[in-house]
């Protein structure tokens, strides 16, 4: 199995890569910092990866997505799974006041990811197989004042991936959006991460790995968020507006 991971230095991506490594996969890790990619690659090789290649690329500001993707595929001699795991939470307060901060959040979390998704979709359609797994967020299910710019990007991403999944329907390839709840990763560092709703990267990784083999296209991680978000999405506005969540 040949797996390309875009945003391989994220904690959830690394945990998912370990699951692939234990299956003896060939991995290509793409990220911005060579030293970090090297550290992860060395670890994955001992954990069972047949190959763990690295490529340095600024994924959020891609120059030519299709040719870059072709190069990534060539490195592994083809591709079976693609995991897109990079993103940035951003500062909601700043994003409300400064347009370029908001645009940056949208560029990293939506525009650039959408470009990769569409390019991957073409590759998978051409070979009539393959699994695309994209990390979204429960924040995309209903806009909240705390992070709605980030949430809007993730909502857009969920719709895009659903659309790709629909395009693939009964055609071989798959596309899935994984929506984690709050997770203990560097992205949420500095928050008060106490309580039962916080998940570990390993918990999210298990869902992301499974998502590649199943018909989704929407996977909540951990699964209990499906119910929680069903309730939150359906709360009447008068009630929702009184809540500070």
């Amino acid at each position, binding site marked *: 199995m040949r797996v390309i991971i875009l945003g391989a230095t994220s*904690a959830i991506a690394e945990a998912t890569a370990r699951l692939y490594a234990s299956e003896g996969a060939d991995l290509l890790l793409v990220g911005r910092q060579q030293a970090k990619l090297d*550290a*992860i690659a060395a670890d994955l090789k*001992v954990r069972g990866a047949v190959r763990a290649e690295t490529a340095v690329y600024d994924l959020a500001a891609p120059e030519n997505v299709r040719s870059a993707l072709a190069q990534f595929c060539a490195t592994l001699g083809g591709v079976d799974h693609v995991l897109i795991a990079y993103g940035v939470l951003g500062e909601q307060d700043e994003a409300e006041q400064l347009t370029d901060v908001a645009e940056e959040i949208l560029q990293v979390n939506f525009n650039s990811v959408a470009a990769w998704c569409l390019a991957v979709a073409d590759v998978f359609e051409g070979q009539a197989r393959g699994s695309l797994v994209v990390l979204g967020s429960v924040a995309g299910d209903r806009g909240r004042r705390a992070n709605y710019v980030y949430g809007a990007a993730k909502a857009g991403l969920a719709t895009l991936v659903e659309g790709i999944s629909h395009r693939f329907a009964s055609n071989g390839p798959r596309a899935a959006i994984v929506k984690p709840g709050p997770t203990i*990763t560097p992205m949420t*560092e*500095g928050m008060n991460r*106490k309580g039962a709703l916080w998940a570990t990267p390993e918990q999210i990784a298990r869902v992301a790995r499974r998502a590649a083999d199943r018909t989704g296209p929407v996977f909540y991680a951990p699964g209990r968020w499906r119910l929680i978000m069903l309730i939150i999405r359906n709360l009447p506005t008068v009630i929702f507006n009184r809540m500070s969540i």
Partner: protein
Amino acid sequence: MRSFVSKDDIRSWGGILQGQHFVSRPNWRDQLPRSIAEARDADHSLLAIGLGRSYGDSGLNPGGALVDMTALGRIISFDPATGLLRAEAGISFADILDLFVRRGFFLPVTPGTRFVTLGGAIANDVHGKNHHLAGTIGRWVRRIGLLRSDGTEIELRDDDQTGLFAATIGGLGLTGLITWAEIELMRIPSALMDVETLPFANVDEFFAVAAESEGSADYTVAWVDCLAKGNALGRGLFTRARHAPRGTKLARVEKPKLTVPFSMPSFVLNNLSIGLFNSLYFYKGRRAAGKATTPYLPYFYPLDSIGHWNRIYGRRGMYQYQSVVPPVTARDATTEMLKAISKAGEGSFLAVLKTFGEKVSPGLLSFPQAGTTLALDFPNRGQLTLDLLSRLDDIVREAGGRLYPAKDGRISAAMFRAGYPAWETFAQHVDPAFSSAFWRRISE
């Protein structure tokens, strides 16, 4: 202190001690110098923490900074020809076993839980049931990456002449931040254990069967019914084991089957229930005595199958007590301790008795030394429990023994210093920016 968050829920595994800490959980080793600098700039002392299995105050630094190392669990390299494994300090023994048992390698030394980090195991120079053959984990450490608070990262080798390697092994995290380490794994023929259980009727029988077993068995340990009195004083079950020569190398991955979701009310554990448990356990064990082949997980880590087992002791928590007394005084001191416990009626579920071999521990503050070790746990009943523990302290001290810092949270500075005469040499290697509640208690 940008990368630190204030937390007030960091507790010792015994559950008695708790404090407010500033905690940072870096994902990359290159963030560690910044964490150290931030803590220093804010005038907070530092301590690394792993999976938090230390029972007392050696893993706490109230009011100060903690660097949680558990996200740093990457393997740096592994050589199947030599068994040398180099990994970041936050890797857990559970992770190492999951990866390497199937390849025919095992930890050279393991404590009774696999939920410890490599760094924590080295900082406590942990021992296991094979002490008479393998000594402590420190004997299997070849290299340590140590980050000092002045920003220098030192690669310590086992042939180090400066004393810093010997101070860092068993050094309770006080000589700087252990960032990675290289240990030698040992080869095993299978993931199974051949285990033999032998009941013994009293302390004398324990010493007889221990002496007889150490030549032939790789692993030995005994459970003692410490509420038994009179002629039955010191009765228990002795197990001796070895890695089974044949069988599968694949271990069934065992998830905690049940977990204790919250602290149990303290009336659940009383002398009646503990006494009943001990008697039942003894008679059940005696009936089932004999030879058996079992997977390695339930043999080495029976309690790991119950998540948060420490919560059965309730909100008031428990005291652990582990002593070692030298061979010459072992028999008398052990008998006297068991008598004191039985007389006080303060029962312990998990009384464990083992003889340590002659293998010298490499650390200046390593706990194991030749002799007999007794490990006990007591539900916290306040002054009653403390009185019994200080009675035990007197016996241990008189017998020329000492206590295990990883399990202590209580003894006097004088008691510690008497047991660890090398502590002053050790103190010269302590990094001035590092400290712990334990260290302040026994050094000031």
